[in-house]
């Protein structure tokens, strides 16, 4: 499969990365080269093989339903959450106005 500029533009838009036309021109062949290379995986016979789910056989551990048991994963720390915000007002994060 080879990707054209329009496809790259669509992917970039999905990934929310603004790319100029000149950048598209450069990126498309690079992606094609890489994709052509990874496509050799298609030649591997994977009949009956399950996709890897856990690299070290292990299952999901569950947490107890306790609020703020560990301050590192609990709430009640609005200051820390907002400390690095580019725009924070009245305890909210600010973003350009969204029309829904």
């Amino acid at each position, binding site marked *: 499969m080879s990707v054209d500029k329009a496809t790259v533009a669509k*992917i970039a838009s999905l*990934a*929310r990365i603004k790319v100029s036309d000149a950048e598209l021109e450069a990126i498309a062949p690079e*992606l094609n080269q890489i994709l052509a290379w990874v496509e050799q*995986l298609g030649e591997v016979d994977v009949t009956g093989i399950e996709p*890897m789910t856990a690299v*070290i056989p292990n299952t999901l551990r569950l947490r107890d339903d306790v609020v703020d048991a560990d301050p*590192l994963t609990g709430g009640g720390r609005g200051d820390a959450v907002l400390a690095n915000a580019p725009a924070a007002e009245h305890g909210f994060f600010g973003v350009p106005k969204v029309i829904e």
Partner: protein
Amino acid sequence: MTDLTELTVAAIRTGVASGDFTAREVAEGFNANVAGAQNALNAFIVTTPDKALAAADAVDADRAAGKVLGKLAGVPIGMKDLFATHGVQTTAASHILEGFKPQYESTVSQKLWDAGAGMLGKLNLDQFAMGSSNETSYFGNVISPWRRNDGGNAALAPGGSSGGSSAAIAARLCPAATGTDTGGSIRQPAAFTGISGIKPTYGRCSRWGIVAFASSLDQAGPMARDVRDCAIMLEAMAGFDPKDATSLDLPVPAWEAGLSADLAGKTVGIPREYRMDGIDADVARSWEDGIAWLKDAGAQVVDISLPHTKYALPCYYIIAPAEASSNLARYDGVRYGLRDLPDGAGLQDMYAATRAAGFGAEVKRRILIGTYVLSAGFYDAYYTQAQKVRTLISHDFKNAFTECDVILAPTAPTAAFALGEKSGDPLEMYLNDVFSVPASLAGLPAMSVPAGLNREGLPLGLQIIGRPFDEQGVLNAGLAIEQRAGFVAKPDIWWK
């Protein structure tokens, strides 16, 4: 008086504990080295000499008060700038996180501070750990302290992504540092700079607070001058963390105490698929040396087969970018980091502008690949296929480990290359991870130890891969090589 910055972690720990010197003297020595090399090597993104001194003073005070000292008491270390450090800028070497000061400390760094270590600074790396040469850092590339013996002064790559860590240790700016390894980011830079580094079994070190690249592959590990120091560091870094759902709920073994270079009764596998056409002659020779050393240490050596080796790299370059494309979606200019808000821009425009301005070219490339392979209609052909091939690669290792206890291979196909030499061709750069990626895909413990110098006078590393949870076997084989390789070379200090 001895130059304290020439000491290993073990020696510093012992010296501080016995009062031969103070932790403050050690910290001052390394602080001076860091400051002296910063312009030339660019190994650190920020330096934190005061933190190093404060930690040292606390250790000295504890010692004076007769308190029990931690495993790393008085040892100043470098912290890869992928670990969140409370109140200290954490960037992943990306413009998009410039100025970000976490209000939390990563589990691994916290464990190190709890063990008495101090922080010299945040080490440079490839942006978001994506790279093998440190050339993708927004804050400029790290220069390896090593130079070729051809009289030229070509600036060499310290490897990547943990290139700040490797350069700093080789240049005696710190006795040890943290690294992270997603496809070889601890082992390859260690090999390039003549130091040791170990990536433990996936899940040994908590990923909580480490900026994520590819979640199913990322593992933290130590980098240091020798095997013992790696064992000491790893003991402090590892351990179960309930905040990481993939963390292994296992006790941390006493790796340092378990060190033994006697490999009698052990079998070492040599994977025939790693003997690739056109392999660098010096690399091939050092591999032969390694085989001889391990035999000398009492091990039996057998040929093994890892049939899917050639598919490991393409498999990795689907899975890692796919995970990264999603992991890096949070850098959107809303809650932290860079925000680029062009005049009149809406929310979605702000995202696109912020991410265009904030991410470097390699990061964008991988996000785009990852986005593509996950997109509608391509998911099964790329991602599902890659995860199936990953299962096969993992099976290869499982089969191999029925015949051997550890596997010996080169760490990288070449010694360090010059900056700029491969950065024009992404694919050629990716191929540098050919020997390191398979163990990452299988989540296995693997380490690189120095094996000697090539004809150009540059270090070469040998890689030992072990069974899941068998860091001890890996460290012991590493120690056997270390004792026989007698690697004492170090770079000339040309930067002062």
